[in-house]
């Protein structure tokens, strides 16, 4: 199987360009995947540093280090950098690396556009970061950029808006490329219902991205014209409505959070069967559940707006529709559990992170269900309870699974084995500290502590201090991952890894049939045997 590659290259120019220029002009899915992943890792630490500023300020009541305006800029920029700079690009990086190898393709369908999609991402994030140094400071309205507050931003406003446009174009290009690759580049015999779950989840995520990024672009364009060209979209005096912005934003925003969680599900469904040494339980129900979650994500947006003033019929509709999401999500959680049931499990680092994901994501899901109940949400809205909720669905879910994916595929990408002891240390430090960090925030929220404030009443002092301590440990622990990545790239433990890396992995998915590291072009002639153990 692995010998099929590289012999067919002589009729056109292959192999990378020399030097640093290779990374600028590359069209190779692995190079671009690497760029995405490294960029996302860098942004994870930039966004993480902002989180450390937030937790340091909240360590004690009273004003400690930063002024309130800058504090609000930090919460805003932390969110934007983590969402658009870290989590989304990391998953696009995984898609670039893995999808062609998983479906038996030579590369992505549209390689030049792939390059542009990455560099537009960098340009967008640079434009966003530049706002930190502008008169009036970076946007401080929260990542939702609600008017009228966001219209009070200083010089940063048009830069932030154009940054959203660039990030949107980048995401749309990336998503179109992924959808075209999956539909058009599969090896013969790789029918849709034989694709690995990671490919399935990205196909559906691709649809979500193409549908929602233009919506966000439209919303911020209206902010721009309201501020600079005299329109009245979000101004009641002219007949507009600021709540309209919230509707449009969340029509984008709710599917957007699923853009971050569906590929997470895909990676978890890839890793758990390998270490349970069993096929994924309920493959087709996983596919349908993913599609159902994606569909539901478009019809539940106003559950972010229960307290904004909506007709009672709206409150009820969005409440019940939101609760429906628990059904396909429950299907997934039960399927992962059933996959592990009576499996011959081993607990290498990727599996540890994946199991922690199943448990902790479920908890984040349950708090989501609590807030879906509109009358109850009136109490929780804009408190630390929501902060705890979405961080549980993003940190010990999306971020943990990204770590799991890193440990799982680093040996494949580099040909070297990572240090398992440090991996486990990283895992245990992370899983303990992430709970110290976010679990107390549930109590703070239930007790009434509002989000997005730099100072708070003294009764919140204890849990905030505990949360901050957890935050500092969690932040510091992630440096271990940085070490693992560098160490593995530079040779790791020195142990030679096989093509399969993990026991019987090649029965699950095609990438394990290629050597580690795989050749520059994945499959120049299509593979003939399609692994079906994941089904």
């Amino acid at each position, binding site marked *: 199987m692995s010998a099929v590659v590289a012999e067919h290259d002589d009729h*056109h*120019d292959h192999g990378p*360009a020399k030097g640093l220029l290779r990374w600028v*002009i*590359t*069209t190779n899915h692995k190079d671009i995947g690497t760029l995405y992943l490294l960029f996302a890792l860098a942004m994870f630490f930039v966004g993480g540093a902002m989180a450390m500023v937030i937790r340091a300020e909240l360590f004690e009541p009273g004003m400690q280090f930063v002024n309130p305006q800058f504090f609000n800029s930090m919460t805003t920029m932390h969110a934007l950098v983590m969402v658009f700079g870290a989590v989304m690009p990391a998953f696009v990086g995984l898609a670039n690396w893995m999808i062609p190898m998983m479906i*038996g393709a*030579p590369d992505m*369908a*549209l*390689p*030049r*556009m792939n*390059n*542009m999609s990455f560099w*537009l991402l*960098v*340009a967008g994030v640079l*434009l966003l970061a530049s706002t930190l140094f502008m008169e009036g400071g970076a946007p401080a309205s929260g990542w939702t950029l609600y008017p009228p507050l966001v219209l009070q931003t200083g010089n940063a406003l*048009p*830069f932030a*808006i*154009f940054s959203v446009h*660039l990030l949107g*174009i980048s995401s*749309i290009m990336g998503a*179109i*490329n992924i*959808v075209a690759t999956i539909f*058009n*580049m*599969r090896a*013969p015999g790789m029918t849709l219902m034989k694709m690995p779950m990671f490919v399935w989840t990205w196909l559906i995520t691709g649809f979500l991205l*193409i*549908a929602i*990024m*233009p*919506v966000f*672009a*439209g919303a911020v364009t*209206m902010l*721009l*014209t309201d501020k600079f*060209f*005299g*329109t*009245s*979209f979000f101004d*009641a005096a*002219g*007949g*507009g*409505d600021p*709540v*309209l912005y919230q509707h*449009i934003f969340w029509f984008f925003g709710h599917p957007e959070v699923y853009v971050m969680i569906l590929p997470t599900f895909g990676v978890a469904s890839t890793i758990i069967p390998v270490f349970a040494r069993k096929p994924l339980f309920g493959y087709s129900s996983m596919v349908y559940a993913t599609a159902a979650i994606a569909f539901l994500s478009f019809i539940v947006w106003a559950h972010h707006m229960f307290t904004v003033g909506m*007709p009672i019929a709206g409150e009820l509709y969005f409440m019940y529709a939101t609760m429906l999401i628990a059904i396909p999500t429950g299907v997934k959680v039960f399927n992962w559990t059933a996959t592990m049931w009576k499996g011959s499990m081993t607990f290498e680092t990727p599996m540890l992170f994946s199991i922690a994901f199943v448990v902790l994501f479920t908890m984040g899901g349950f708090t989501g269900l609590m807030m879906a109940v509109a009358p109850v949400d009136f109490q929780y809205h804009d408190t630390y309870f929501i902060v705890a909720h979405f961080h549980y669905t993003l940190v010990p879910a999306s971020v943990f699974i990204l770590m799991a994916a890193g440990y799982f595929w680093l040996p494949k990408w580099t040909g070297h084995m990572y240090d398992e002891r440090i991996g486990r240390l990283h895992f245990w430090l992370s899983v303990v500290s992430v709970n110290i960090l976010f679990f107390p925030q549930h109590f703070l929220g239930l007790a009434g502590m509002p989000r997005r404030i730099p100072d708070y009443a003294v009764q919140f002092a204890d849990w905030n201090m505990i949360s901050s301590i957890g935050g500092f440990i969690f932040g510091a622990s992630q440096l271990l991952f940085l070490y693992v990545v560098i160490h593995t790239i530079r040779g790791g433990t020195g142990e030679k890894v096989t093509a399969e890396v993990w026991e019987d992995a090649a029965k699950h998915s095609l990438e394990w049939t290629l050597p580690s590291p795989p050749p520059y072009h994945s499959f*120049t*002639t*299509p593979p003939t045997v399609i692994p079906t153990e994941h089904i």
Partner: protein
Amino acid sequence: MSTSDAYYIPHKATWPVVGTAGLVTMLAGFANYLNGSSIGSTMMALGLIVFIVMLTGWFTLQSGESESGMYSTQVGISYRMGMMWFIFSEIMFFAVFFGTLWYTRNLSVPWLGGEGTGAATKELLWPAFEAVWPTNGPGKVGGEFESMGAWGLPFLNTLILLTSGVSCTWAHHGLLAKNRDQLIKGLIATVGLGLLFVTFQAIEYHEAYTEMGLTLGSGIYGSTFFMLTGFHGFHVCVGAIILSVVLFRSWKGHFKPENHFAFEAAAWYWHFVDVVWLGLFVFVYVI
């Protein structure tokens, strides 16, 4: 079969980074311009030039590759999928502004007029306001204005765009039948009708601004009217430019009945612009 070594994988792409540099310079320049900085317009112009150079270079490269037969059927399918999903994203972009029009006309303006739970608010804050469309809101933002009627230039423009859709399809039939004359005449007619549309729209805008008091700042009516028709007009311009390039390539004899992706993509785009206009005509002008 579907993934063979015949799939063309280009290497060492330089246009994408050039395009990115052009785009980010243009947008950063625009942002500087909006903030009142003097370098803004220079940056915008520079970025635009780089962006146009990139488009020219990239498309020249692509058509050259296509002409030398480097693209298999499978590559063609990737391009077609790319174009389809791009048009889908454009539909979602227009959907935002149609949605805004729907929401304001049917929900938020009636609420301002006291519907739902807003009766007391209305009586206290703006008792004189009547919630009838078209409106510029309780604050009469932008002053007195007239709304744009449907049955003058807009109706004429509807006929023009529908005819251009027909001429575009007629040109396509010419291409398929290897009738070069019909192909080129059809495309010239399509581009010409597109330009006529834009000219009429410019006249309409001029009239709105100078005689009807209707501007982008005329409250929510002016905002939705100019945003929807403006973005559409911009898309007509882009479509006309794309069709001009296709016309040029037809004149050079590039397209064959079995291989003419660029023509197809341009035609899809043109029909998309056409359909958006029908939506605009009904929801912005007629109703």
